[in-house]
């Protein structure tokens, strides 16, 4: 899989976002087993330690949990997933708003524009 990574941001953060999207879009379903660090690092074409860091962070955030011998799994906690959805939405909207403001729109104009498109 060819992922284009932003060269200025640490890759592990970008991987976290990609995985979050996979979960939110249900490409990776709740309770699904997460592939091994090794396999993922090859699929994402990144350093395995980087992948390990991304997964550890996701564990810390609660989106992923690990079971001692069985491996890593996507959380079944719907609350957690919604939280993630909310956070991503907010983050995306904030970036969008910032960008639109740069282009020269006010908040009302942005809302009108959205309805138009």
């Amino acid at each position, binding site marked *: 899989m060819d992922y284009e990574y932003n060269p200025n*941001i640490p890759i592990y953060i970008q991987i976290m976002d990609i995985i979050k999207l996979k979960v939110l879009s249900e490409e990776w379903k709740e309770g699904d087993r997460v592939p091994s660090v090794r396999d993922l690092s090859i699929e994402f074409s990144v*350093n395995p330690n980087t992948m390990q860091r991304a997964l550890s962070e996701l564990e810390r955030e609660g989106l992923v949990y690990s079971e001692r011998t069985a491996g890593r799994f996507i959380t079944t906690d719907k609350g957690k997933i919604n939280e993630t959805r909310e956070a991503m939405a907010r983050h995306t909207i904030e970036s969008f708003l910032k960008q639109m403001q740069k282009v020269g729109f006010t908040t009302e104009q942005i809302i009108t524009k959205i309805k138009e498109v």
Partner: protein
Amino acid sequence: MSKNLLEIKNLLKYYGDKLAVDDLSITVEAGKIVGLLGPNGCGKTTTMKIVAGLINDYKGTVLIEGKEPGVESRSGISYLPEKTYLSDWMKVSYAIDYFADFYADFDKNKAYEILTRFQLEGNMKLKAMSKGMQEKVQLILVMARAARLYLLDEPLSGIDPAARTTMLDIVLQNYTEGSSILLSTHLIYDVERIFDSVIMMGNGKLILSDTVDNIRETSGKSVDELFREVFKC
């Protein structure tokens, strides 16, 4: 016993009057993929040759798993030089048998598997292959070994962009927690995603040594950008 797979302390190497490596001190831990970056003639290749055991006339300390370069370290190091070191008359299958003979950690099946992935065959003669094909064969020979330390000197330079991804995949697939890869390259942009950390050299000296994440977090730049800045090219 330290975690360091490779330890270099105050390395000095003269070629006549010219100082090729100037008081270099670096370490590589086990389980890391490290980039060795720098412009041509900065001492990267010389350093790798010293670790690989091709140059024994130097000052300073070089320790591979705590031992100085010798017969033992050579069995744990898989070195890919920039040049073609296989003889013209050799067939690919002969080269594979050769490696299998001398390196206990060589996996013949793996070698043939990767060969097929590159659409190459065992009975091809090196004489009849393009430089790019020869470089692929050499990479295969080096990566089909389960070595402790891989030294790859510009493994991507003669390879077309399409094959580069495959080669990086092969490098990543060979990663194990007990082994490390030291990879020198010019093509930083494509490759920096696979590095844990990078070592930058200039004029034989160490310029910087840091993790890729750190560089991106603290400077907001990619390693490639930082490199261009440092070497103003």
